């Protein structure tokens, strides 16, 4: 009953979005009030219906309803409750329903939080979201229905892939999708602006908080995925330039460019067409990512089970959505008026240059990810493009952007003075040069990459400190100032993390018998043997390790080698001792003869700074969204004040 209810809710939702995607848009175009006002209620209905459908699927998992094919494929009665929820988005159909749920949520939020925006604009924005929703709902209902029945019902399910049975992995897709889908709002605002011909600073002001919020989620989602890979996969890597990872990184790069571009459009009224193009681009890349993961076109550890029919559908969807937006752009953007002027040396230029570099970086990742496909399609053979390529290409492109990150905030709008900037920044320059050599030498040795990493990190960090010191002289800075500083600090911290780990990590692959010790990174590890333990749906060999430094025991680590009942593949659960300045990481390999085990021990200096950096960036985003200008309460208070004033003067 409940799955059918969910299915029915989706069909109704399709009807609602079909209305939402047509009438309000036509109404705004023709000035028809009665169609314009349909937008908000339709958005609300859309959300309620998809929430019902999502709830129905979640309930099917919670209640172990193995008569639903999707549940039988991805769940199991022994699966702990938390992972039963995570299993909802563990496969293709469910993850698409999650996408839909997020889209309906964002649409609902826009409907509720846009009271002060004029109705025609709201109608357009919601209308565009409705169109996107309609095409995705069609996709779900025609090719990827999660409510299909399995008759006769299975006794028990296949179980969720053991790799996904982890808290990090439960939250990673929702965070990512909140980001991807959130960019649809920026996209909708951009299309609405093109449709209405109204592309001004007010439009940018409206778009900004939505875009920033989406960006926050995407940042956290990517960081979560990276952190999960680090502690789950057993060999301490945190980024592989896998096609699906790249698919999430590309919208992030464009989204970051978009954030900066929107700031300029709002403050200075310039970069309008460019901002619109970036908004279209960021969402298009989100859709492209969806295509790449589910179509079977690229090999990836992340790929869902593929079906060429689905691939064709998504490609058609991609062509329709992106093709029509870019056509609209080509048609309407030339008519947009040029904003104010600015000198070649100005903050605007630096921001634009940073944007260009981010776009180039995004383009490079796209090139590398799709190149094997290009070559194969042209019958020129088969090649692989992996981490060596991306690392070689990404660093030279991003390094200048990092340089600019310290310079742009110091530059004046419209006309910057190079001498003044140099005067303000030389201290940061000096500190960064010293750090570039001192720190690597302290850690073990200078290389080009480690020197470059510290140079840039301290350059950005130094500039930040100088800005804060100077700014405090004029009183406590507003949240928007902290947003920028935290965002850039996050990058600096991130760069320190990857430079430290990349340059100075240590690893040993050893054979250990109970009682053996090994020395890695100044820490001594003593193996006390392994014993069998039972989990809810697995059994494991759990090793016990004593970690000591300078003779005193710091802590015990218990890595496991798990065998899930549902899968042939053994899973490695590494044990990590995290710390501000280092992680130590122990992972069990294979059992050897007698009581001996193959063990891998890692020393990873400052590795947690990688994700701490991402958190700082996200925090910066939160500051940006919380800035007074966007808080509705203040608006209401101001509106009340203005009304009172008007009353007093009339």
């Amino acid at each position, binding site marked *: 009953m409940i799955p059918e209810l969910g299915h029915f809710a989706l069909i109704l939702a399709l009807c609602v979005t079909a209305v939402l995607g047509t009438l309000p848009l036509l109404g705004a175009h023709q000035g028809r009030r009665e169609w314009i006002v349909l937008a908000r209620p339709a958005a609300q209905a859309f959300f309620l219906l998809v929430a019902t459908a999502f709830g129905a699927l979640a309930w099917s998992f919670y209640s172990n309803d193995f008569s639903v094919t999707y549940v039988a494929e991805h769940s199991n009665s022994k699966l702990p409750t938390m992972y039963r929820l995570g299993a909802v988005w563990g496969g293709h159909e469910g993850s698409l329903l999650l996408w839909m749920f997020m889209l309906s949520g964002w649409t609902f939020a826009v409907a509720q939080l846009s009271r002060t925006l004029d109705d025609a604009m709201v109608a357009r924005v919601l209308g565009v979201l409705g169109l996107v929703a309609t095409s995705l709902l069609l996709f779900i209902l025609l090719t990827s229905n999660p409510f299909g029945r399995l008759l006769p019902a299975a006794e028990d399910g296949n179980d969720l892939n053991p790799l996904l049975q982890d808290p990090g992995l439960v939250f990673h897709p929702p965070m990512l999708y909140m980001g991807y889908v959130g960019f649809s709002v920026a996209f909708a605002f951009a299309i609405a602006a093109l449709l209405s011909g109204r592309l001004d600073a007010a439009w940018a002001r409206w778009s900004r908080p939505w875009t920033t919020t989406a960006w926050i989620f995407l940042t956290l989602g990517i960081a979560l995925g990276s952190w999960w890979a680090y502690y789950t996969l057993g060999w301490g890597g945190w980024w592989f330039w896998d096609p699906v990872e790249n698919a999430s990184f590309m919208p992030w790069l464009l989204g970051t460019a978009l954030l900066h571009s929107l700031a300029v459009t709002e403050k200075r009224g310039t970069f309008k*067409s460019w901002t619109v*193009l970036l908004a*279209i*681009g960021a969402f*298009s890349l989100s859709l492209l990512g969806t*295509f790449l993961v589910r*179509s*079977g*076109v*690229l*090999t990836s550890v992340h790929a869902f089970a593929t079906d*060429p029919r689905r*691939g*064709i559908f998504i*490609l058609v969807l*991609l*062509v329709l959505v*992106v*093709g029509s937006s*870019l*056509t609209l*752009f*080509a048609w309407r*953007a*030339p008519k947009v008026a040029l904003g104010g002027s600015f000198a070649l040396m100005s903050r605007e230029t630096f921001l634009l240059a940073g944007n260009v570099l981010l776009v180039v970086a995004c383009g490079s990742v796209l090139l590398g990810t*799709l190149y*094997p*496909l*290009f070559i*194969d*399609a042209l019958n020129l*053979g*088969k090649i692989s493009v992996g981490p060596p390529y991306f690392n070689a290409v990404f660093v030279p492109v991003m390094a200048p952007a990092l340089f600019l990150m310290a310079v742009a905030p110091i530059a004046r709008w419209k006309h910057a003075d190079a001498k003044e900037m140099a005067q303000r920044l030389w201290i940061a320059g000096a500190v960064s040069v010293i750090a570039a050599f001192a720190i690597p030498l302290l850690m073990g040795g200078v290389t080009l990459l480690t020197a470059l990493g510290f140079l840039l990190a301290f350059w950005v960090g130094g500039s930040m400190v100088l800005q804060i010191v100077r700014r405090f002289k004029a009183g406590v800075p507003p949240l928007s100032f902290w947003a920028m500083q935290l965002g850039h600090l996050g990058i600096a911290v991130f760069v320190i993390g990857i430079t430290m780990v990349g340059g100075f990590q240590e690893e040993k692959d050893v054979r250990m018998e109970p009682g053996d010790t090994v020395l890695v990174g100044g820490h001594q590890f003593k193996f006390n043997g392994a014993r069998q333990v039972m989990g809810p749906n697995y059994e494991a060999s759990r090793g016990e390790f004593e970690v000591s430094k300078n003779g005193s025991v710091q802590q015990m680590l218990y890595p496991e080698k798990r065998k899930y009942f549902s899968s042939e593949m053994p899973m490695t659960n590494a044990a990590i001792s995290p710390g501000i300045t280092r992680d130590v990481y122990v992972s069990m390999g294979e059992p050897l003869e007698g009581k001996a085990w193959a063990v891998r021990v890692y020393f990873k200096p400052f590795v947690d700074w990688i994700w701490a950096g991402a958190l700082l960036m996200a925090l910066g985003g939160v500051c940006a969204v919380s800035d007074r200008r966007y808080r509705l309460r203040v608006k209401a208070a101001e509106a009340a004040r203005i009304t009172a004033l008007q009353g007093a003067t009339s």
Partner: protein
Amino acid sequence: MKLKFLIPLAMFAVLVGFLAVGLNRDPHEVPSPLVNKAAPAFNVAQLAAADKNFSPADLQGQVWMLNVWASWCVACRVEHPVLLEFGKSHAVPLIGLDYKDQRPDAMKFLATHGNPYDLSAYDNDGRVGIDYGVYGVPETFIIDKHGVIRHKQIGPITPEVLAGTILPLINELKKAS
């Protein structure tokens, strides 16, 4: 001025073109760089008779087929009836390469499902497979009279592939000097 605004759309169109073509390709399939090169030499024991050896040089001057199989390989069972049928025709010598297998298991497989091979070579540690660029089972090589690999079939041989690709190639190679 207006043309530059069409650049994003044009780039997108090119991208979509490639993606559409890509939908019809298999990103896992690895074409062999050994086609039109000499078949790598090897000398290993036979499966059935451990005291006798086999080497590609034994078949110099003939067109022949090398089929990589294993008792643990599920897809090989799909291919097996096709091979049995083909083997009956004795069109060319059909040599099996028993890859990363155990003798008893392999012998049992042939006894149960039939033996289409003139003989099978025993590649226990997979070294011959590596020299031939084998990355999955089954795979099949067509080798000409001069010992040059002319075709590599990745995956099981289906009746369509046999009739459409392999047989015509074999006939053509047999006619050649």
